[in-house]
């Protein structure tokens, strides 16, 4: 088979101790981002390269820093909801769920059965729309742009369902402490089912287009490998851990909402390269579609959807602290909430999966990789800068 390796003899070489002299002014430094089509969102990598190989990478974040955690010092608990969804743009519902679950746990509120199912439905729909955008985007990073066109179109159909249910396309603010804001509109299930049939077709076509594609395989198999020992060392969660053979899924490990009544088994692989992580997320689409069907079948028809809460205008959430977590499409998504018993939260801290994936893990993974693989590596970790910097 045709195989070509570039002539690397003229590149700067390491010193006798095997290390490069980074102060020698002989190595090229390039900035990958923030204005670069190949980075996920608004972040940048400072790369020191020799030829086309990366010797050192530093992640720079903070381009999206809005200081949410500071702003919550000035907002009452209920006023946090419009802003908390904006902490992670591609998948906003995990934020609202975590904050309401945390408040409910601190205040000792039990939410009604119907609200549980509705929340589960919204979380799964949100996961589906995030995956529909990111799985084909993995093909986009190696030059296969067609899948993105299909995926984003389908995602838009799911966003239409969101709009019907909650009134917003991207930001929903549907879950509030005590439950949710409303019931399903008439005919919602049928319309969602129509969309899911399209997603079923899409899943098959993306397999033919991307996963079985020789070029795609060539560019992704064996690239950006994560050894299994790194899982704890770097705090890896979610599908990245599942790609390395460790089954981590908050929905299974710490069942919340109605997940203990649902039957699912997330995919797992041991290859731990870009291809494996794409394959796992492709499988996640199938799991999610299946879950959505299960939810719609098992869900009660009507019922109370909101438990009574104190007057939210001056609600003093009892003193205490709690860590709540849920599974987003990127992995474990946690909120650490501290209340001092006043009208305002004391501290709301978000720990998203990208916090380690995009900073310490990515810096380590990119060393000795090729520049052309960087975009694929970043998308395969599904890094999302807003949740790093809040």
């Amino acid at each position: 088979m045709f195989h070509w390796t570039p002539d690397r003899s003229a590149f700067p070489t390491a010193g006798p101790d095997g290390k490069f002299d980074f102060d020698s002014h002989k190595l090229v430094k390039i900035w990958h981002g923030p204005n670069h089509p190949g980075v996920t969102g608004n972040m940048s990598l400072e790369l020191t390269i020799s030829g086309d190989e990366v010797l050192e990478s530093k992640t720079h974040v903070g381009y999206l820093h809005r200081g949410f955690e500071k702003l919550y010092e000035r907002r009452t608990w209920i006023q946090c909801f419009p802003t908390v969804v904006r902490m992670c743009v591609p998948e906003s519902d995990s934020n609202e769920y975590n904050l309401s679950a945390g408040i409910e746990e601190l205040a000792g509120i039990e939410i009604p059965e119907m609200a549980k199912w509705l929340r589960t439905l919204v979380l799964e729909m949100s996961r589906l729309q995030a995956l529909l955008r990111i799985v084909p985007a993995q093909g986009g990073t190696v030059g296969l742009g067609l899948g993105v066109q299909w995926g984003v179109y389908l995602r838009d159909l799911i966003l239409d369902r969101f709009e019907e249910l909650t009134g917003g396309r991207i930001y929903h603010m549907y879950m509030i402490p005590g439950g949710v804001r409303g019931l399903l509109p008439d005919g919602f299930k049928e319309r969602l089912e129509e969309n899911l049939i399209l997603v079923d077709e899409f899943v098959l076509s993306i397999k033919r287009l991307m996963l079985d594609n020789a070029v795609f395989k060539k560019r992704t198999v064996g690239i950006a490998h994560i050894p299994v020992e790194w899982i704890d060392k770097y705090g890896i969660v979610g599908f990245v851990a599942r790609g390395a053979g460790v089954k981590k899924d908050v929905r299974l490990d710490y069942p919340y909402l109605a997940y203990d009544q649902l039957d699912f088994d997330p995919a797992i692989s041991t290859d731990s390269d870009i291809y494996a992580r794409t394959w796992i997320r492709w499988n996640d689409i199938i799991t999610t579609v299946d879950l959505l069907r299960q939810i719609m079948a098992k869900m009660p028809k009507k019922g109370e959807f909101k438990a009574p809460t104190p007057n939210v205008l001056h609600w003093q959430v009892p003193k205490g602290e709690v860590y709540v977590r849920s599974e987003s499409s990127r992995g474990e998504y946690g909120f650490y909430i501290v209340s001092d018993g006043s009208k305002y939260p004391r501290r709301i801290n978000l720990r998203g999966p990208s916090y380690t994936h995009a900073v310490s893990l990515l810096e380590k993974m990119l060393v000795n990789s090729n520049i052309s693989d960087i975009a694929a590596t970043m998308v395969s970790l599904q890094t999302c800068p807003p949740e790093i910097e809040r």
Partner: protein
Amino acid sequence: MAEEKNYKIIQPDNSEENKFLKPENYKREVTAPDGNTFIVDPLNDYFCDAKPQPHAPNTIKVVEKFLNWARSQSIWVLGFGTGCGSIEIYPLMTPRFDAYRFGVQQRPTPRQSNLMIISGYLSVKTLKRAIRSYEQMQSPKFVMALGSCTINGGMYWDSYNTINRLDHYMPVDVYVAGCMPRPEALLAGFMELKKRIREGKGEGANQYAENFDWYKANQKKIIKDWNMPDYNW
């Protein structure tokens, strides 16, 4: 392995201006092979420091009209997602809303594009990059600002790290209101922008050149870590 360096770094004084100056931008005294020494200032010597000049419209009215029509038909957007609004660019550029119908397409580099979409809140760190990208674009260039964040700060009006009004830092041609604006609103914004260009009102680049000092003063007031030449060609 350290080799003999042919330059000496001049430590800057401790004035307010130099507080955040990066070491690679310090002035240095270089010894040339012939023994002469001279001073190199990396921030000014490597860049053209001519200010931008306003362009007068073509004197023949018909030609100017034709040019404006042509400009309005090829809006090339710089793919720089600065805030949450950038998530709506995906549907906009894909079959559902398909902005290509209107001659709008995305370009990866500032040199090829003439429309900058500021898609939401701008933190100070991004503002610096946004200005840099804006100045690198070729005239005539236009700015479209999305969302309430660019108008008056939106829901981050009291945040310490996001700007409140974009029009103090770069000239804005069209605002699209909403939080976040829907793709339909963006399409309406493109139509409005085209109308303005055809009427000859898309004069953002000239406005920037005329009020250059005012814009620079505003920018420098909040970007303390400047570390770039005053005008980025």
